[in-house]
């Protein structure tokens, strides 16, 4: 009995549905079941093929493309980093070399200057010594000359005086007496001429 009612209700509902579809066939074509099976069939086919081709062929390729690009970029970044570090090290090395050579150059310059100064000093010392010696020699000579000068002058004065007196008076005068007079004069006036 219940079964019968259920069957009836299903049957009637189906009939009324048919009527509804019939009434709306001019309204909503979506509710017309004529091509439902066809749409399901073609949807399954097209979507199935789309899914299979995308998942098996295309998406793995895109994924690997993305991966390879990622790894390539990270590789490049790594390489760039490495090279930068290397260049930094090189730069440091270069700077070290520069400072080292600067210090070396300074040392060499200082050494050279010291050597030159030493040379100059030594030469100047030698020259000073020589000059001193020369001066001493000259002074000695001058002193000697100065010491000898009064004697020579006295002698000249004696001779001149004796000759003068001979010419003037015509008489021979004793040289010894003249020399005594000259000595006496020179002693008196020596201070005036020689300063000692």
């Amino acid at each position: 009995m219940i079964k019968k009612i259920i069957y009836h209700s299903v049957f009637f509902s189906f009939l009324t549905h048919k009527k509804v579809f019939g009434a709306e066939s001019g309204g909503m074509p979506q509710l017309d079941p004529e091509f439902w099976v066809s749409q399901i069939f073609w949807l399954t086919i097209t979507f199935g093929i789309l899914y299979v081709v995308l998942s098996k062929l295309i998406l793995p390729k895109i994924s690997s493309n993305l991966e390879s690009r990622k790894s390539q970029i990270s590789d490049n970044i790594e390489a760039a980093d490495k090279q930068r570090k290397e260049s930094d090290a090189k730069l440091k090395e270069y700077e070290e070399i520069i400072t080292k050579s600067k210090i070396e150059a300074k040392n060499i310059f200082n050494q050279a200057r010291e050597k030159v100064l030493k040379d100059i000093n030594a030469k100047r010392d030698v020259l000073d010594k020589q000059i001193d010696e020369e001066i001493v020699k000259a002074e000695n000579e001058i002193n000697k000359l100065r010491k000898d000068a009064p004697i020579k002058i006295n002698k000249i004065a004696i001779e001149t005086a004796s000759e003068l007196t001979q010419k003037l008076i015509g008489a021979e005068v004793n040289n010894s007496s003249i020399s005594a007079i000259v000595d006496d004069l020179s002693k008196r006036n020596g201070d005036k001429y020689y300063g000692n």
Partner: protein
Amino acid sequence: MAANPMTQFEVYRIGPEIKIGAFDISFTNASLFMVVSSLAILIIFNLGSKKNSLLPNKLQLLAELSYTFITKMISDTAGSKAKPYFAFIFSLFMFVLFCNMFGMIPYSFTVTSHIIVTFILAAFIFIGVTIIGFIKHGFGYLRLFVPSGVPAVLLPLIVVIEIISYLSRPVSLSVRLFANMMAGHTMMKVFGGFVISLGIVGGWLPLSFSVALTGLEILVAFLQAYVFAILTCIYLNDALNLHH
């Protein structure tokens, strides 16, 4: 007849009638646009993945951006466990998107404006997600219907509501897409009809509406494809990571 805004949704046979048993599986305009959409997707993504250059060209960029977009969407909503279903969600999103977009071309046919198409997709997702849930959690999957932290008095009511909401998922999923596409296209057709009937004098207002609606519909076409895909992800998330 052309003024009837529903004519654009009519399905008609292209070529001969094909029958398997009692079932009519003839090639129709709907089938044609399914094939066209699928082919367009395959061609674009095949060209976009053919060459692997460090600086991608436009197609490659498009393919890779779509790939990362969907990957991010899945990982954001369903977590890392949903990775095996990436290809399915990708094809689903692309199929719905391309069907919607091809529907925007005048005189074309919108596959997704038919409830049967969207319902089959939604039902497939619903059944698939339910099977995945039972495989992953066994009968523990039924805990989905028992939210934690609910007073024992309210529990029977809550469970009933949860079951109803779970069972209505395929309906809401399919009707959302179908109704959006149908309503949009009907409205555009109606405004287009107004342009003709009001003529050169008064037709400018509905024409400007039509232009604005076209922009809106393109937005809706993308948005609905996105919503369809993201809801699939959310259902998948329920099945993979039982939160309740």
